[in-house]
């Protein structure tokens, strides 16, 4: 893999295959990697995940590896969740904070073996990780370029893997990790994803990336497999209620303006904060916040009508109380969903608010004041996401 100083934009180990299938040639920059925004049409790709199997190249995801006797203790100090509770071959979603208790990023921690972890992150943060390593016996490696990865998501994904010969894959529990031999080497499969559906992520050495892709698409041909791009993924994650760093919150290290970063509580992620463990970054500030109250609340809204409430202001009566961070019409749930940050005293489930939506049709701008209701969470949450053994479609 070429270092960035020699290449304007990097290609992932699957690039030749993505390129061949990217019919509309629509690309975006994902942390320095060329990543398909869409291959054919966004809706088609979206429905591939909800009805068949969609494959998303997640190789650009920032991946750090932690090894050494203090790796677990190190991560426990770094992130808000209690890492000691993540067994080997398990994955956990978490956030990590600065000393102020503001979220720097969210991501997943893979407990690969004794004293061996991988952290998948949205943003590069090696400097912070290295600063955090003072006082710990831990080795930290950025292995973003050393690991090729695909998200294989959708109801038929398990069946496709079975057809590839991954026997017993249906027994893998959500957030579990397993491994299969592949072409003399190994592929690691975790039952994780960003779509809220039955699905997996596969992790493999870059040299085997193309042949894995080929085997996967061969096996999935009759089950409607197709590659999906970032735009479809955005709809999928919205429908299932997943926050996107840089969109639904500004990572604390990237926020320039005072007051623009958010705590886990303010993002509805208080469940990720464990006060029953040793000191972790942000603990003090978060304890204080818990006691004294947060500034903001993060809410899921069911918005009347079918106009996505993108960038809308949110009102309680006549008072402006917040703004929308993510909004989309969700085709499967048939709901117009928005994520919003509102002043802390608003946003109880069931509360009615108003979204001020502007939309344009042929140069004519229209404003609607759409009623919206605060809802519990994801509007798409199928049983197959959790079922073990995974259902066969």
């Amino acid at each position, binding site marked *: 893999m070429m270092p960035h100083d020699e290449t304007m934009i990097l290609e992932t180990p699957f690039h030749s295959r993505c390129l061949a299938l990217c019919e509309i040639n629509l690309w975006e920059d994902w942390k320095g990697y060329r990543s398909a925004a869409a291959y054919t049409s966004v809706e088609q790709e979206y429905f591939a995940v909800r009805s068949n199997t969609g494959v998303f190249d997640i190789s650009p995801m920032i991946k750090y590896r932690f090894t050494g006797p*203090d790796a677990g*203790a*190190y991560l426990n*100090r*770094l992130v808000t969740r209690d890492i000691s509770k993540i067994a080997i071959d398990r994955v956990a979603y978490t956030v990590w904070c*600065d*000393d102020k208790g503001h979220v720097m990023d969210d991501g997943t921690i893979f407990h690969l073996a004794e004293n061996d972890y991988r952290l998948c992150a949205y943003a590069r943060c090696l400097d*912070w990780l290295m*600063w*955090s390593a*003072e*006082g*710990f016996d831990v080795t930290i490696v950025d292995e973003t370029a050393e690991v090729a990865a695909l998200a294989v998501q959708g109801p038929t994904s398990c069946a496709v893997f079975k057809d590839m010969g991954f026997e017993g894959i249906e027994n893998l529990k959500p957030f579990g990790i397993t491994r299969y031999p592949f072409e003399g080497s190994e592929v690691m499969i975790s039952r994780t994803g960003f779509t809220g559906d039955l699905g997996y992520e596969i992790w493999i050495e870059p040299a085997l990336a193309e042949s894995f892709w080929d085997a996967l698409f061969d096996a999935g041909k009759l089950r409607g497999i197709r590659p999906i791009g970032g735009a479809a993924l955005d709809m999928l994650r919205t429908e299932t209620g997943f926050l996107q760093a840089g969109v639904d919150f500004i990572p604390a290290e990237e926020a320039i303006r005072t007051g623009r970063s958010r705590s886990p509580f303010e993002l509805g992620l208080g469940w990720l904060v464990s006060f029953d463990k*040793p*000191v*972790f*970054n*942000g*603990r*003090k500030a978060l304890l204080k916040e818990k006691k004294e109250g947060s500034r903001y609340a993060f809410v899921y809204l069911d918005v009347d009508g079918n106009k996505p409430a993108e960038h809308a202001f949110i009102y309680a009566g006549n008072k402006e109380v917040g703004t929308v961070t993510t909004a989309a019409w969700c085709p499967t749930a048939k709901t117009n969903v928005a994520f919003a940050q509102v002043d802390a005293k608003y946003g109880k489930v069931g509360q009615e608010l108003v979204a001020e939506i502007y939309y344009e049709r042929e140069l004519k701008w229209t404003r609607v004041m759409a009623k919206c209701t605060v809802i519990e969470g994801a509007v798409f949450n199928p049983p197959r996401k959790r079922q073990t053994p995974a259902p066969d479609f």
Partner: protein
Amino acid sequence: MINTDKNYDVIVVGGGHNGLVCANYLAKDGRKVLIVEANDSLGGASATSPLNDEFSVSSCAHWLFQLNPTVASDMGLTKHGLEIAARDLSTIALAEDGNHLTIDGDKLEGAGISDEDRKAFVAFNKQITKFCKLLAGAFNRRAPKLVEGNLTDRITVAKLGLGMKMLGKEDMSDLMRLALINIYDVMEENFENDLLKGAISLDSLLGSHMGPRSPNTVYGYIYRRMGTVFGFNGPAVVKGGMGAVGKAMANAAQASGVDIEVGAAVSKINIDVDRTTGVTLADGRVINAALVVSNADPKTTFNKLVGLGNIETGVARRVKTMRMKGDAAKLHIALDSLPNFTGLTEQQMGQRLVIAPTMNYIETAFNASKYGEYSKAPAMDISIPSIHDATLAPQGKHVMSVIVQYAPYELDGGWNDEKKDAFKQLVIDRITDFAPDLKDKIVASELLTPVDLEERFHIHGGHWHHGEISLDQILMMRPFPGTSQYGTSVDGLYLCGAGNHPGGGVMGLAGHNAAKEIIKRGKSA
């Protein structure tokens, strides 16, 4: 001794002078206080150590020139045995040709000093004294936090601001200008005489990793001169060596009810999630207390005793980046009789002698240390305390104590016996240039590099001040931003050493202020 039946309220880690001062105030406030000290003697870097069977010497700090009078009288140090053998000494800037310059308060003598320099020196002293007085108002209280707008802090800031205004237009603009430039430029603006410029420059940087042209040296000089406000008109020699300060303070503390255990190193400050519960000693004993006050420097406190993994990353990062690498060595020489310094009488040899013939001489000496080498021609601050104090050496014999700039903590390839010996010989040779018969009189000698000082006094980097005294590491930024009012991010853990506002030197104010802060916080401490 540790009284196992006592439930201590406070454990002070380290019986340095600031630890003793702090413990004393806390005990007087009615708290049950225990000091645990790794060494067998108290006072920290204010120490007297044997040089051999017959001689002893102040093994780190060797002059008393900044001890705060409030602290001294609150503790009754005179009553508790502190004796000054000589005070208000002059500084004599040595010249190889014997035409030395004597600086005695405002008076300058010798070295062909001009009337212009004499006049300029009086004016310079007057201005520096004004600046010292201004700073003194902020020294005996906690440094303000700028953001939170607490009333006490606002008063401190207001006092400082008003004080600056009261300096008058010229002095105020001078202070703001001078504080940010370097002593070299200030000297060039004011004086002609090289010895005078060299001697003042040396005062601005002793113990630091700075040369005359380094920024922050003007503040360093003002800091050094704080003794002027505290009643010192030049350095003093303590009878029995600087260790006697520690002894008197320990007596005072014990009289106030403080228990003291010496020879007991703390291996760990115990923390239960985010609150300290006491300490664990190297021998395994665990002592509990609601409050732990660390007199150890901030790096030692957090790196070794707390563990960086037990604090949040942001704080750990501050600890790491704090600048505290010592660059001064100590040379101790036992002499079978007084050497003859060219052009000096015995009375004059009892003054403070400095070898800093020009500012460029010091800067050149500093150059070496920037690149990990020791100075080939070092600058020095020499004391022969036995002239005033017969307790340090047998009748007719003497000890000499020398502060040597520069000997970097991180010498290229590290310090070893060979390099230490070579440096020691080089330093002795250099002194011999001014005292030709010195070598004939040497009975014993030792050189302590910053690495040795670190080991002996448990100071990270061997830096006497527990952290460079520079504008980025003073007031609310000492020891580092976010930890500046003696409290730390660990509840119940306080710092009282020189690494905190106002800083190092045998002054006692860091310990005093820490105690006041703890007392002020009361139950919430």
